[in-house]
């Protein structure tokens, strides 16, 4: 199906475990983003990518790792999960960063619980 998908939709893990959240888009958008959504904070940018093999830190990158070997995929890895990483994670993509066509399209989200 066309669009942006995330998997898994729900994940429960334990402190210290490694977790990878997947994001896939079918539009061939250059830019992809990972946000976390927490009550009272809105959405905060974790990492973003301007193209394959180009990534950069956002506002809250600590404890997360990303890669982008292919344009359409942008996985987010929690190397050693902590309770503070319990959140809803959204992936997004956009054709451009600035100007027209820079609106971001969001995936359905992954609800992660770290016990």
């Amino acid at each position, binding site marked *: 199906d066309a669009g942006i998908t995330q998997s898994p939709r729900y994940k429960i893990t334990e402190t210290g475990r490694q977790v990878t959240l997947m994001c896939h888009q079918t539009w061939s958008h250059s830019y992809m983003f990972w*946000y976390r959504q927490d009550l009272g904070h809105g959405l*905060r*940018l974790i990492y973003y990518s301007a193209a394959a093999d180009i990534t*950069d830190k956002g506002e809250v990158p600590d404890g997360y790792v990303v890669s982008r070997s292919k344009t359409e995929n942008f996985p987010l890895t929690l190397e050693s999960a902590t309770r503070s990483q319990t959140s809803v994670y*959204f992936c997004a993509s956009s054709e451009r960063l600035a100007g027209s066509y820079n609106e971001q399209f*969001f995936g*359905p989200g992954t609800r992660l619980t770290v016990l």
Partner: protein
Amino acid sequence: AQSVSQHNHHVILSEAASLELGCNYSYGGTVNLFWYVQYPGQHLQLLLKYFSGDPLVKGIKGFEAEFIKSKFSFNLRKPSVQWSDTAEYFCAVFATGRRALTFGSGTRLQVQP
């Protein structure tokens, strides 16, 4: 640092009431402005956006927003809300030179039938 403020955290309205949600940002340069909506259990969807030109922007589902540059504001309005407008609304700003959108903390709108 740039910030986006949504002063109304939780708004409760009756159907047919008028809606205005405030959004203020602190960046002084060129900005692109967005309102996104998140219906219960769903992902964020774009309601409307402003890039340039007419400061009054019309979006989907009868929503509109007015960009007032002198007030650094981009308030969202709807003349008559419906129960189906119950959702969380996020204002977002993209400023030239920034890496991505900066989101406000969101406003939860509850419309009572």
